């Protein structure tokens, strides 16, 4: 029972490079989210999706893009990496049709931009 799987776990990027953070889930949840976590700031929502083909911006979307072609996958794209994007990124899922819903998190991707 994998749950929410993020790859890679760690990555170092040079300024201006691009990369895709992968997130896949086997929980059949409609909602998926990308958060970034910075020290003393908690988690900030970057993008979210309520189902395949539907995405929307969160609090801090600038510099990122997402797509949702399937229920299972929700990749996060950084096109031109900047030092301000150094952070820990978490993917999460939830099933809001269930009253007792909660968000389930992946293990995170630690990204450093130098």
């Amino acid at each position, binding site marked *: 029972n994998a749950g*929410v799987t993020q790859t890679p776990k760690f990555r170092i990027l040079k300024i201006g490079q691009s990369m895709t953070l992968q997130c896949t889930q086997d929980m059949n949840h409609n*909602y998926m*989210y990308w*958060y970034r976590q910075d020290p*003393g*700031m*908690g*988690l*900030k*929502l970057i993008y*979210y999706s309520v189902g395949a083909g539907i995405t929307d911006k*969160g609090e801090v979307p600038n510099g990122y893009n997402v797509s949702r072609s399937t229920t299972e996958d929700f990749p996060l794209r950084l096109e031109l990496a900047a030092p301000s994007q150094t952070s820990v990124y*978490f993917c*999460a899922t*939830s099933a*809001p049709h269930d*009253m*007792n*819903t*909660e*968000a*389930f*998190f*992946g*293990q*995170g991707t630690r990204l450093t931009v130098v």
Partner: protein
Amino acid sequence: AQSVTQPDIHITVSEGASLELRCNYSYGATPYLFWYVQSPGQGLQLLLKYFSGDTLVQGIKGFEAEFKRSQSSFNLRKPSVHWSDAAEYFCAVGAKDDYKLSFGAGTTVTVRA
């Protein structure tokens, strides 16, 4: 929009002592409230949640939290902490028609022997 404040950035507690972490939220309607724990290098694990009903909720690892609407608070408590409770704790708020969670800045708990 909802928001969450965790007033304490860092708390140090002795093993066996009680622990209380504060959480205040801002939301116009009935909130959905959560406490998550994050151990170093790990993802977030749900400790407990409140949607409706009994305002005192029990969670895993011996934690409990009390929803107080009049104070807009959802404080987390544990009667006797163990060294393994050293972690970062996050309070989060959502809503019935808006499942995007807003998180507080987190409280780091250190447990001393």
